[in-house]
Every structure is written in C-alpha cells, then in structure tokens.
C-alpha cells in the first residue's frame, strides 16, 4: 500500500519543489533589504560544481561537499556584495545577471576541470548514499514495504522537507527581530535607516551573502539529487525562474516565495496533459498576476486575514498562515 503512495515520480517532483523553495528564499532574503539580485543561478552553479567536483575527485563525503559548496557560494557572495552595494534596483539586477552568465561561461570553457558544456555525470547521489549507509547497519527497505528506488527518493524528500522547514523557520524568526527590522528599514528608506544608526553596508552585504549561501546550498543539493549537472542548468533561464517564484508568490512575507515555488513547480507537471500549451498558460498567468497583483499573490493583508480567521476559529492569538502555504 505504501508502495503505491510513494511513486518515485511524485517524490522527485516533491524534491524539486523543496529545492525551488530554498532557491526562492535566496531571492527573497536580499530583496527584503531592497536588493534585487539575479545571481541565484550563478551561486547555485558554484555550489553544485564545487560539491560535485570535491565528491568525485577527492572522494569526500557528500555532507562535506555540500558544506564546501555552500561556503564557496557565500564567500563569492561577500566579494560580489561589497562592490555592488551602491547599485539599486534594476542596475543591481543587471550586474548580478551578468555575474551569473560569467560563472556559466567559466563552467563551459574551463574544460579540464568542468568537462565543458558536456557537464559532469556520476555525481554521488544523496539517496543512494543514505541507503548504502543504512544497509551497512542491516536495514532493508523491503521491511517497510518499499522498493530501493522508492526509499531513495523518500529519504531525500524527508531530508529536504526538514531542511526547508528549518530555513523558513530561521528566516521568519530573523524577520521578527532586530536584524529583520534593520532589513525592512533599509528596504523602505536607506538614508533614514542610516540616520537611525543602522550600518547599511553590514546589513546589505549580510542579506546578499545569506542569499548566496542559500543558493549555493540549493545548488549542491541539486547536484547530488540529479547526479548530473551541466552549465545549461545554471543559465539565464534558471535565474529568471527563481526570480519569478518570488515575484509571483510575493516578496512581502516569507510565505510568498514558498507558495510561488510550490505552485509554479507543480503547475507544469499538472498541466502535462496539454503538453506544449502548458508554458503558454504559465506565461499568461504571470502576466495576469502582474497586472492585477503586482505585489505577488501572498501579501501582508492575506496573511493578516488568515491569522484573523484562525483566531476567530480557535480563539488563539498566534499563528502564521502556515497551513495555507506549507
């Protein structure tokens, strides 16, 4: 019975949704200080290639590869974040988009290391590694009524779900704190924020770097879930896809990017039966949404509405709208 429920195809879509949530957060966090960054695809590629190459050539455990990939992306994030501080809005978007393209072109041309546009295959797979480790302890997925490949995807899905929930929790708490207020103040009025004693250099670079870390982390995971990466995975299209998650879902509250990533990853799969028309519908929906709700689908008002509904139902004062968007 379990076996039918855990179709590897659905589980894989689930994994992509969770990776996309992390990527959407990597746009949301810099944007919460007003920095519109399109560098996520580039940082994602950095994380993916770093982790893939380290695990293949040096036989390092996947965990070490992922940590290294995340940190490299974060480090480059600081280096990019510092000189682009003065840029605002669309100028920053252009520079970060250019950065992503530079990274991609480096991947294509540094053939001795990256294997060029052919890409890297045979990257250690997280699920298989988990299964191998557990089998070492005498565990057998058949005892749960699952086949090996079902267990592989189920384990990745559960792992990513825990990570995604942790990250949403992390950035939600950060939002409701001194750091979050500093971010919001910078987004609303940089000069006034500076006059109120906020070190805008520090907080802008911090937010940009947090975005880079998130994208680098998502990229490393991506490499170890697909087991194959190529420069095309981190192109301009990826950058725009990630941006659209956040813009479509809404960038005012953290549930916006989460919802955007879930919905827009799901949609093309659900619409598979109309094959090539599905991307037309996808495009049309985004155009309509931008015309009707430029702030994105989920905004502060919706969250407050959900909160008040919950409160009147249960008579409690807490709640976050998590039911709707998770």
């Amino acid at each position, binding site marked *: 019975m379990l076996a039918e429920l855990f179709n590897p195809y659905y589980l894989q879509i689930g994994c992509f949704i969770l990776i996309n949530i992390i990527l959407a957060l990597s746009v949301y966090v810099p944007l919460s200080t007003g920095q519109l960054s399109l560098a996520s695809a580039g940082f994602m590629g950095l994380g993916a290639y770093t982790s893939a190459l380290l695990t293949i050539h040096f036989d390092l455990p996947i965990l070490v590869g992922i940590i290294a990939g995340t940190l490299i992306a974060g480090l480059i994030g600081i280096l990019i974040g510092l000189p682009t501080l003065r840029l605002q809005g669309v100028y920053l978007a252009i520079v970060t988009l250019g950065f992503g393209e530079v990274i991609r072109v480096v991947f294509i041309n540094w053939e001795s290391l990256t294997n060029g546009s052919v890409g890297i295959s045979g990257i250690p797979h997280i699920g298989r590694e988990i299964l191998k480790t557990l089998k070492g302890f005498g565990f057998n997925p058949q005892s749960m009524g699952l086949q090996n490949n079902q267990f592989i995807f189920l384990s990745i899905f559960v792992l990513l779900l825990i990570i995604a929930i942790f990250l949403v929790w*992390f950035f939600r*708490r*950060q939002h409701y*704190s*001194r*750091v*979050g*207020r*500093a971010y*919001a*103040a910078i987004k*609303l*009025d940089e*000069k*006034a*924020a*500076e*006059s*109120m*004693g*906020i*070190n*805008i250099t520090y907080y802008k670079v*911090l937010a940009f770097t947090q975005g880079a870390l998130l994208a680098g982390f998502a990229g490393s995971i991506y490499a170890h879930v697909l087991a194959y990466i190529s420069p095309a995975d981190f192109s301009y299209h990826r950058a725009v896809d990630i941006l659209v998650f956040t813009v479509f879902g809404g960038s005012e509250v953290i549930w916006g990017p989460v919802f955007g990533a879930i919905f827009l990853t799901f949609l093309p799969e659900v619409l598979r039966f109309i094959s090539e028309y599905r991307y037309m519908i996808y495009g049309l929906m985004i155009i309509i949404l931008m015309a009707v709700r430029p702030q994105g689908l989920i905004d502060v008002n919706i969250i407050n509405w959900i909160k008040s509904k919950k409160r009147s139902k249960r008579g409690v004062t807490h709640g976050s709208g998590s039911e709707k968007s998770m």
Partner: protein
Amino acid sequence: MVLEVKKACKNFGGLAAVSDVSFSIRKGEIFGLIGPNGAGKTTMFNLITSMFPLTTGEIVFQGDNINGLKPNKITEKGICRTFQNIRLFPLMSAEENVMVGVHSRSKSGVLSSVFRTKSQRKEEAAIRKRAKELLEFVGLDDFADITAENLAYGQQRRLEIARAMASDPQLLLLDEPAAGMNETETSELFQLIKKIQTLGITVLLIEHDMPLVMNLCDRIAVLNFGKKIAEGTPEEIQNNPAVIEAYLGSEEEEEYA
C-alpha cells in the same frame, strides 16, 4: 560645549552651499538655526550627521572630531535627527518605527535573534518597553499599531521625533518640525520640545515659524546664502539689522519697489 562647528564649508561643484560657518551649542540649550529658503540650513544638518562630507572645516561633538564618520556612527555617538520631508518607514507600524530607532543601542545578531537566547529576549522586551515609553512621551500611545503612512501629518512629525529619541541622543536635530502644522499642533510641539529639554537633551532646531523659534530657543544663529550673518539671543536677533535685511530686504530696495 556639546557641539562645535568650526569654519564649516561645503561646495557643490561651484556652489558654496555653506561657507565658513562657525557656531557652538552649549549643553542643555535649545539652539535655533534660521534663515531664508536655500540659506544652507538643511545642508548644515547633513554635514553634522555626515550625510555629506565637509569640504573644509571641522565639527567637534563632545570633544571628539566627528568628521568623516559614517552616519550610523554619528548616531551611535549621540546625534540623531528628523527630516524636513518626513522620512518614516511608511509600511511599518508606529511602534516598529521607534523600535528601529533603538537599533544603535541594542546588539542582537542573526544567531541570537533566530534562536532567541535569553539576552536577546530580554533586549527585545526592553526595546518594546522603550518604544512604548517614547510613543507615550510624544502622545502617540494610542497609535502604536497604526502603519506610519496612515498617521496624520502632525502625528508623523511627532513619530519622527520619537524615533530619533529612541537612539538616546545627547543632541537632537529637528528639521522644521512645525512645518505644515496648525496652531494647536504647533503649541503642542512647543510643549514637547520644552519637555525634551528637561530630559537634558540638547536641541538644534531649524524652523520657519518665527513665533515658535523666538519663544523656544535660548540662542539663534542666522544663515543667509550659506554664511552666518548673526548669532545671539532671540531679542538680539530680532533687532539685528542684518537679519531684518535678509528677511525683509533693505530700505533702499524698498524705495525702488
């Protein structure tokens, strides 16, 4: 002396917005900075708060030269300001605006904020309490949850004062706090600034409302075309021929008119 401005000059290209201005402010006084439009008053504020660098000259705050410090460091040192064209954080509530003001007097970082350590929770509670006190101080305690952009104009001006006071300044710079206020609001503002003075906070005030300035200020400096043309008590300023000429034009000119 709380603040000493020594031969401050600021050029924008060929335009001397402020040239060779010196004045000093004693602890606890309310010091007025007046002058016709475009005289360089707001530029002076921007120089004191390091929004612009000085071209030449020196600004000394409580014995320390503060030239070239970043604006956020100036706030940490104890100077905070309001803006002529209100610059609140429009989408935040009144309370959150004031809470942002406490930023330089608190220190929780990312990790302590996320994991809500004991010291962070204590600090957050203290920030909230301070914000409540200040909202009460400026008479906005009933509007704590209202979004700043939805407040009335006079309330926004008072909220800006509360936000600036949240950084516990030694010197508070008010840029035309009475602009656009009606008579009742102006007299409330008068009481408020007097109350700020009793807290031991020194106030530097730019204002066009002459009755308010003359009643409120202990001493006044007058700028015209970027130069200081007079300094003294309100009585001295009112009788100073150079000031009268700057505001009303000289008698000879009137003959032509």
